[in-house]
């Protein structure tokens, strides 16, 4: 059996010190299944690890993440109030920005535009959210940018290249300049011929240090095994003297946790 908590296991790698190492980009990906449990885990992990988190939450409401977060042991409300968490609630903000012209640039202002070229306002929002605090004492550990999810930006009119540029700029600021980490979810659209999404997914896969890929089982729905998780460690900036390592586990999502087991070793089977 794999050590129970995925977020600890995978994130232990992410925090392993590499001499002069920049921060890491972790790509979360789901194919034929819902990978949002990974987002919830990383959110709670980084908050518990005392990191400053900027969460670009485009898919669900604040209360949804908060309620799940409480099951995993964190309170987003408290984190937000004390400044540890900067939360961009996409659904709610989209209504504000769509129906009312904003005086100042809004991170989601591309929603109002016919041909928005880039995600610069969103990048500025992230940079502002994770900028170093000036009071000398670092209140929080490394900054983290979490995005749920990047695929929806394509549905909102941005091209894959614009989204890749956005991540590139964020990496420059968050990973290199501030030695922080980025975790982002992208859907794998499989054989639905979503060209833009494939470009985005492939582009990010090449840049990522760690890829966690949740897949639905090939054999279809199963009550005891919800899917399969592939973990792939990569070293994008180094020549491939080391082979990329990967591990595969099957998982079952429960009310307050996710349990992992080696293939075929589900407790239901044994």
């Amino acid at each position, binding site marked *: 059996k794999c050590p129970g908590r995925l977020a600890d296991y995978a994130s232990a790698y992410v925090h392993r010190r590499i001499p002069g190492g920049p921060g890491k980009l972790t790509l979360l990906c789901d194919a034929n299944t*819902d990978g949002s449990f990974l987002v919830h885990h990383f959110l709670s992990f980084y908050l518990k690890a005392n990191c400053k988190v900027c969460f670009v939450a485009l898919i669900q409401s604040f*209360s949804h993440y908060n*309620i799940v977060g409480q099951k995993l042991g964190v309170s987003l409300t408290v984190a937000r109030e004390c400044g540890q968490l900067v939360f961009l*609630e996409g659904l709610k903000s989209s209504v504000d920005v769509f129906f009312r012209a904003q005086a100042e640039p809004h991170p989601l202002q591309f929603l109002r535009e016919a041909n928005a070229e880039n995600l610069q306002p969103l990048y500025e929002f992230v940079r502002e959210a994770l900028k170093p605090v000036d009071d000398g004492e670092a209140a929080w550990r490394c900054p983290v940018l979490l995005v749920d999810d990047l695929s929806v930006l394509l*549905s*909102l009119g941005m091209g894959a290249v614009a989204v890749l540029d956005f991540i590139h700029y964020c990496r420059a600021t968050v990973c290199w300049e501030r030695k922080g980490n980025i975790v982002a979810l992208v859907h794998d659209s499989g054989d639905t011929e*979503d060209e833009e999404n494939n470009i985005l997914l492939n582009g990010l896969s090449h840049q990522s240090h760690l890829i966690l890929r949740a897949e639905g089982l090939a054999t279809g729905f199963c009550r005891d095994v919800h899917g399969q998780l592939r973990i792939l460690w990569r070293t994008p900036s180094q020549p491939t003297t080391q082979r990329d390592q990967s591990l595969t586990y099957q998982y079952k999502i429960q009310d307050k*946790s996710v349990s992992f087991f080696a293939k075929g070793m589900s407790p239901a089977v044994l």
Partner: protein
Amino acid sequence: MAAVATCGTGAGSTGSVVAAGSKNHVTSFQRRGPRASGSDSSYSRLVSIAGTRPSVRNGQLLVSTGLPALDQLLGGGLAVGTVLLIEEDKYNIYSSLLFKYFLAEGIINGHTLLVASAKEDPADILQELPAPLLDDNFKKDFDEEACNHKTAESNIKMKIAWRYQLLPKMEAGPVSSSRFGHYYDASKKMPQELIEASKWHGFFFPEKSSSTLNIEPCSLTHGYIKLLQFIQNIIYEEGFDGSNPQKKQKNILRIGIQNLGSPLWGDDICCTENGNSHSLTKFLYVLRGLLRTSLSACMITMPTHLIQNKAIISRVTNLSDTVVGLESFIGSERETNPLYKDYHGLIHIRQIPRLNNLIYDVSDVKDLAFKLKRKLFTIERRVE
């Protein structure tokens, strides 16, 4: 009319009793959970809205889709603040019936309706709604205000036997004493006085298309922009978003949008593969934003079988909360196949949302078929 009025108030009063009783049933986390938007104000106040009940799974407020069989498959009903997408069957026969059940349920519960269509005048759609079924068994339920243990037994008429056996006895507990979900007689029309007593807003695109926009064009088609403005206006004016402290809205807004994505809305995704690929998805995103911040629930029917670009269908699915596909046997080879002779089509539960939860209540039976009998629309596990 009197029977329905009794039912309505009955639902209201037993609803508030339920709030006290069900505190013991539901885990406490969702009462502590801070709620950001106006729609998530105090738990006990919400439970007393007619025609709603809290989900056993996650405390989410649910409304009935108008088809109790479908409610069961969706984990109890449609969550307030979410979108139910129905992928239309080929000739839009059964999806249009589901649409009518949804609206009829709104009228019976006293919910406010918002009906949007590019094909039919909403006033005409309302005239076509099915009448609530009031034969002997059901009439008894309407008349009794006390907790009704017979509700579960009367449901045996609906052939989803396998599902009831597996579920915990949620139907027999105090939560079900307020009437949730009604049956409709598709062969009769909703009584005129009920329609007239109901509160509804209609959006008929051909009538609205000429007026001017006050939002800059932003890659949404004209029709979608106007519809969003209309919906947002109703939500704001009638206080469904809780923004106006003067208008304490204690009712649900049921939004029904018909044939979204069809060329009648001005969208070309059903005509060509290289159509406007962002208009519909952007619309859905902003719509969901409006729903999440108000006391409303929305059913959309969409002719996905006509959409040329498959990538759009998968994006639309990701942007919807619940997705149900209907496949009718009319005109297909299955019509004459003896395996399917008892049924009119298949129903596919493509997606169920995980709201406020890591898990969801997903059924393990994927083979579901439906049939429209003279009075009832039933859903059954397909027997091989």
